[in-house]
């Protein structure tokens, strides 16, 4: 029974990783950059809900909506101010280093506002969950909501990309920026939209993550962010189903690692998985090969 319970917890944690990984993978596919600050947008989203709900005492639903709005705007602003000027920089390191800078900026601004002490986050899911197998298997409400949210997001995003004009524009830009521009696609707008969607998803991920693990600090987003990137790489960066598969796989590996090997080593195991994947199949499970043009 504990095996199934671990598995479900793993899928739930993996669903959060998957939602975060979607943001990474979309941005990577379109802007060809690793948005290091993505994990910290999660933290901003969680703090927004915390402030609105716990500090200001407003309804949870309002908190979630405002949080999503804040993160969306934040994502677009970050792109415009910090990344866009470097889009054509000579060195590929430039935008990566800047993204690290933005990540640190967000963490430290949060540190100044909220302090380093962990805040206890009130779960946004009040449902206590279901009991199965005569109460031996207990699945919490947050776990179920997280998995459902992930599925809904996944379907919505796939429909958006395949059925809408904006979604098709995204595909075109990720394929060839120059050609997309020539075809009359607003490249800057499309990139901004991608950051907006990615950041909105980060806000949702932040709320779900903190509902399941209620301790909130300025560094809350950092490690899940990096792990979600690992998930995106694992699934094949640039691929939306890949982010989903990678995220869930990673969540399961982490929970099993914690349960059956060593709780202190869980992070090391996750990272070891990344290294092995990159060595065996550098493009990830669903990634495609890109050859450099000579």
């Amino acid at each position, binding site marked *: 029974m504990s095996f199934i319970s671990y598995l479900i917890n793993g899928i739930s944690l993996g669903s959060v990783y998957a939602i975060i990984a979607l943001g990474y993978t979309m941005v*990577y596919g379109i802007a060809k*950059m*690793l948005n290091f600050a993505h994990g910290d947008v999660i933290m901003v989203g969680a703090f927004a809900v915390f402030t609105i709900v716990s500090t200001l005492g407003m309804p949870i639903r309002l908190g979630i909506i405002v949080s999503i709005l804040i993160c969306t705007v934040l994502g677009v602003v970050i792109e415009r101010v*910090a990344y866009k*000027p*470097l889009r*054509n*920089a*000579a*060195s*590929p*390191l*430039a*935008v*990566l*280093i*800047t993204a*690290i*800078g*933005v*990540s*640190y*900026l967000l*963490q*430290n*601004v949060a*540190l*100044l506002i909220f302090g380093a002490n962990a805040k206890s986050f009130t779960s946004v899911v009040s449902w206590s969950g279901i009991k199965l197998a005569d109460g031996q298997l207990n699945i919490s409400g947050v776990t179920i909501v997280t998995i459902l949210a992930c599925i809904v997001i996944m379907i919505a995003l796939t429909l958006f990309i395949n059925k809408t004009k904006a979604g098709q524009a995204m595909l075109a830009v990720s394929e060839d920026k120059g050609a997309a521009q020539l075809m009359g696609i607003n490249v800057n707008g499309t990139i901004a939209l991608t950051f907006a969607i990615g950041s909105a998803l980060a806000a949702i991920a932040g709320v779900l993550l903190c509902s399941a693990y209620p301790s909130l600090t300025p560094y809350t987003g*950092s490690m899940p962010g*990096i792990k979600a*990137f*690992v998930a995106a*790489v694992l699934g094949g960066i640039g691929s939306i189903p890949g982010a989903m598969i990678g995220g869930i796989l990673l969540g399961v590996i982490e929970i099993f690692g914690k349960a059956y090997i*060593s709780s*202190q*080593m869980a*992070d*090391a195991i996750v*990272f*070891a998985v*990344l*290294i092995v994947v*990159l*060595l065996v199949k*550098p493009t990830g499970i669903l990634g495609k090969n890109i050859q*450099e043009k*000579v």
Partner: protein
Amino acid sequence: MKMKELNKTTKSNLITYALVIITYIIVQIILESGHMSSLMEGLLVPLCTYVILAVSLNLTVGILGELSLGHAGFMCVGAFSSAFFSKCTAELLPSGLRFFLAILIGAAVAALFGMLVGIPVLRLKGDYLAIVTLAFGEIIKNLVNVLYIGIDENGMHFSTKDSISLGLQPGGKTIINGAQGISGTPNDSTFTIGIILVLITLFIVLNLVHSRDGRAIMAIRDNRIAAESVGINITKYKLMAFTISAALAGVAGVLYAHNLSTLTALPKNFGYNMSITILVFVVLGGIGNIRGSVIAAVVLTLLPELLRELNDYRMLIYAIVLIAMMLFNSSPKAIAFREKYSLKKLFAKKSAKEGK
């Protein structure tokens, strides 16, 4: 023409060495006259550590052109391996020889790890390399925290659970005690040794850069495909730069470990944060600019300490510095703007646009 250029690099290198030596002399004078606060005195060895870290990371980031986010991991390896050695041999060897050997061991073990990590990792590019080095750094930190090593009359015992499972005989002692790390490492690090190590680091890096191997490394940075086309062995030179960089980070770790009574692997000293702090030094000093790394490491370490009220804002300032520097230095628009309005350019003849 050539002589002039040679003199220019030699001169530039000599200025760097002179800067370090003059700083050392000034500090010694202040120390002798008793005007140095204990706070500042305590910062002297860490400063040397940071300078070595920054210079060695610049070899990877600036000269090789790859972003490593696991530099603190190599420092960690150097620190723990050397502290382990020093603690084991504390009563056996005279302190001078012991520290000398500790430095060699720290460098060698870090170099070995650099090579082990480098062989698979250097095949990857840019973002992937950054994330894998980060992962590596975290793995090292994690492993050290669950590592227990003890010695008794039967030899060495290892465990990854706790010190009791080492099963030591009475009289045996635990050397590495998991998350509690190593305590009682002899405090062999001094400012003078630190400065000597800084000078050696500079000597190695600067001379490497201006040699046949250094040219090959920079050629790979500037254009990998062209470098391959003229017969440069990409793997060999990438690995060389990465390994030397790791070895020097290991040396910094030795200096760091022998300046503390208790050595533990925390996120603060050997984690991702530390790797980023070193990266900030490199970026502020100028990517590829070795002297810049030295100055930036000193200034960015001293400034928050001197302006106490700024200490809370330290990482925030680092973050802003990082973003501003990159935007100012690498944005094509900013570069065009600077070129348009730079005095040098106004007098020099206009050079044609570079080929794409």
